[in-house]
């Protein structure tokens, strides 16, 4: 009996021991998995509401979020291949030129020996003053930069083309490729339509070259600069005076030096009864039940997302639906291996309005509204360009009202704040008309929102 008990007890201990061992093993495995996962881009798919009203067909918003991990500590960051394309036309003379030079030096100082740096300047003609070379030759490069003189026209297309040519010298190597274009004027030599430069951006995107555009002053063409950045998936900045240039350059380099994924290709697959309506903010390709989106680079610790409007079929109470599956293919720049990350999203249906309301995903709602605001800002620019200023103001005001309404509904202070900012913009335009500056602010903000640009 006692033996039996003892045996039993021993058995329990053994079982407990095994259990503990098992737990430890699972935990270790889990931790290692977590460690592995933390260095990968996390792809999540969310809907604006997890529970949808049953019995009716409706629209929903999908948010595919790519959460880039921070740059892993202790790893060698991938080399950066940076081409700085500087406008040296006559209008840059003075402070702007001095600050642009300071910005160039700032950029150079942040790069290391393993990076490649080149400087192209353009006026009527294009000159490569620093051909692509290791960023380690600091003194020599700085001397050359200091000698830049302003004067002449603005051959922006040629400048970017030459910058791209410098980048291409190291295109085969494993670099993060980036052109930083700085201009304060209208392109007046060569192709100058925003569409043309947009197409150049798209072509460069295919070569994994991103173009970041920095507009200085109020005389540059913000459409062109935003389009070029958008189509190549770079950042865009508006700097009213030259004084901010070094700071912007530092922020930009902060992004570039933190790239954790390149050649990002997002594929969203929808089930047969869910129809894609449109992609909000980004340019995506809808092909039947598949939606494709491309991004050039993801920056460590930053989040980028895509918003898709979909049409959902009517469903019965209690139904579960796998609404979307997303797949992210990208290149890991640290080991140059292709990586895949997946995410799925499910929704359920209910007749209970409270349950539906409570299931709202505030984050998705907020970003959706902010992107709608970005589109409204673009619409306002378009209307104002056509001379329909009252309508432009109306569009902005409607957008502000909508933001405020949604913000109140979900008690989202960020939305309410944003609503006030947009209302201010609308008032200002109503009062003083669409100034060059407000047009630039609208264009730049709109793009920065659509692109989830963090550095501003």
């Amino acid at each position, binding site marked *: 009996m006692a033996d039996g008990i003892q045996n039993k007890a021993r058995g329990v201990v053994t079982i407990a021991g095994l259990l503990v061992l098992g737990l430890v093993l699972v935990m270790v495995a889990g931790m290692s998995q977590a460690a592995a996962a933390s260095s990968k881009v996390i792809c999540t798919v969310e809907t604006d509401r997890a529970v949808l009203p049953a019995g009716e067909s409706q629209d929903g918003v999908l948010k595919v979020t790519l959460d880039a991990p921070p740059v892993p500590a202790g790893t060698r960051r991938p080399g950066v291949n940076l081409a700085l394309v500087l406008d040296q036309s006559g209008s840059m003379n003075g402070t702007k030129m001095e600050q642009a030079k300071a910005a160039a030096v700032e950029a150079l100082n942040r790069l290391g020996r393993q990076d490649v740096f080149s400087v192209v300047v353009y006026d*009527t*003609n*294009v*000159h490569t003053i620093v051909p692509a070379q290791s960023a380690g030759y600091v003194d020599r490069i700085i001397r050359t930069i200091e000698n830049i003189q302003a004067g*002449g*026209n603005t*051959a922006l*297309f*040629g400048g*970017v*083309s*030459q910058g*791209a*040519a410098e980048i291409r010298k190291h295109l085969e190597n494993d670099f993060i490729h980036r052109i930083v274009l700085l201009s304060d004027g209208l392109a007046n*030599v*060569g*192709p100058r339509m925003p569409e*043309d430069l947009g*197409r*150049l951006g*798209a*072509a*460069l995107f*295919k*070569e994994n070259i991103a173009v970041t555009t920095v507009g200085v002053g109020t005389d540059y063409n913000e459409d062109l600069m935003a389009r070029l950045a958008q189509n190549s998936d770079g950042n865009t900045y508006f700097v009213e005076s030259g004084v901010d240039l070094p700071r912007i350059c530092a922020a930009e380099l902060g992004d570039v030096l933190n790239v954790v994924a390149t050649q990002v290709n997002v594929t969203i697959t929808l089930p047969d009864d869910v129809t894609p309506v449109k992609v909000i903010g980004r*340019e995506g*390709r*809808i*092909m039947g039940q598949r939606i494709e989106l*491309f991004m050039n680079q993801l920056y460590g610790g930053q989040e980028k997302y895509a918003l898709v409007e979909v049409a959902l079929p009517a469903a019965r109470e209690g139904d579960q639906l796998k609404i979307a599956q997303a797949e992210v293919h990208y290149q890991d720049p640290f080991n140059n291996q292709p990586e895949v990350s997946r995410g799925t999203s499910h929704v359920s249906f209910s007749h209970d309005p409270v349950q539906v309301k409570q299931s709202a995903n505030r984050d998705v709602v907020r970003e959706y509204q902010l992107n709608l605001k970005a589109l409204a800002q673009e619409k306002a620019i378009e209307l104002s360009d056509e001379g329909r200023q009252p309508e432009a103001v109306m569009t902005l005001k409607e957008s502000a009202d909508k933001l405020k309404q949604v913000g109140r509904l979900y008690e989202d202070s960020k939305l309410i704040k944003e609503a006030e900012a947009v209302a201010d913009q609308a008032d200002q335009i109503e009062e003083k008309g669409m100034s060059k500056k407000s047009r630039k602010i609208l264009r730049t903000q709109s793009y920065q929102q659509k692109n989830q640009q963090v550095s501003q």
Partner: protein
Amino acid sequence: MAAGMTQKRSIFLFWVLILVPALFMSGAAYRLLSHEQDRISRSAREALMERAAAISETIHMTVDTVKHNLIQSLMAIDPGMLNPTLLDWEKTNPLVRNVFIFEPKEALLYPEKGMAATPEQQQFIARFDALFSGRMTFDHLERDGGREPPRGMAAGRTAANVRQRDARRQLVTLSRADRSPAARIGAPAQMETLESATSPEQGVTSGWLPWFSENRLHVLVWVQSQATSQVYGLEVELVTLLSRLVVDFPAMEDAGSAIVLTDGSGSVIHQSGQLKISPEIRPLSQVAVSRLLPHWHMAIYMDEDRPGGARGFFYLSLILVGIFMAAILSGGILLTRMTLANMKDARQKTSFVSSVSHELKTPLTSIRMSAELLLSGRVSDEKKKDRYLSVIVSESERLTRLINNVLDFGKLEQGRKQYRLAPVVVDRFLTELIEAHRVRITALGLKILTRIEPGDFRIRTDRDALEQVALNLVDNVLKYAGTGDFIKFVLKRQDRAVLLTICDDGPGIPKALQEKVFDKFFRVDSSLTATQPGSGLGLSISRRILRDLGGDLYLETGKETGCCFTARIIDHDTDNDSGGGR
């Protein structure tokens, strides 16, 4: 008089001898330079044209290679993998703007009408609607010269050489208006050129189709398999092509010229060279870039008139010739002036010698006559004896003054005159001077007026020099204003200087000559001066002496009759001595 004529004639001859060859030379130089400039301009223009032609050639070769490669790649696609391969190209190839698959009898298979995925694809379908709706076939507008078989490298090179010659031949001067882009604006979607080729062994037709839509060039590369009659291909991303092409443009630092690539509407695609181009400026000449890119031109511009431009040589040489001519002319002018000055000098010296001789002779005659009379012993009257003796004394004094003047003049001219500064009480000096010459003055019936203003007249200067100046002035009055009523001496103190003014109410000096009287050897030419002996040195020497001592001598102007000379005598007693007199 005759000598003057001869001199004038020789100067005239001299100028003729200088001017005629100089003008002839400059004329010849001008002609020569114009010719040389024309030659240089022509060769510069030709060099620029050659460069433009060479760039065009490179562009054509590049585009031709692109065309060849694209068609080859399209043909090489496995028919089973057509769709995914093309889609992959569209996504990843920068040279590909759009891809399409078209079934002539049916419809566009990709991108599907109404189901276009992106705005870009919708525009693509709209752009090429004439083709995809079947209103035009891909090869129906064939040109005679457009048909050429796919060729190997060797064939390609020969063709390129032929084309190079063609390009040279095409290099003609055209005005921009000749190309009338307006015609194309009227008909937006019109096929301009069509190149297509058939490869019989493969049963595949292919082509490069430039297409104008909204006055912009688009290029479609297509392949048609004759077995299935399906047409597929791609729209070339011209922006990429352009972006690659412009990078290979040569850098031109020349500010006076430019090579410019223009598209069909005449707008600049790329520019090499610093010259500012505006639509009003016509290109010197232009050449069509490539038949693969219709209406694209390579234009050359040159501003020949800008400094440092092509005509720089001409202007520079002209300036040099000008400087040369100016040197010759100014040399001539200098020589003439020197000759004239020498002649004047010679004249003045001659008159100086004669007047000085006269001056010397007059007192000498008086002295000699008086001395002879005294010597003859026939003068018994003591009074008369005294008078003769005083004549001898005064005339020899006069002689001494004259000789002093001449000696001083020599010293002053050579800058060797020494001044001995010593304290002088000017008012006492003046009183003594007046007393010494009272007899001479009163003898002419002149009243002596003296006004000495209150002040300190003890100064430091050279007494002898001062006496010479005052004597010259008094002598002048006696010589030329003896007909007047008075001679007036005014003395006053002004800061560091003492002003001694000696006035008369004689006939005065004509206004035009008032400054000339201070020139050496100058004498006012009038009946009055003719009767009086004089060297024309007195005033000149006096002014020179006073200026050497830091002061000045001037004539008070604005008087109708009479004249007043004021001597400004500087006191050298102060420490801040201006150092005038050494």
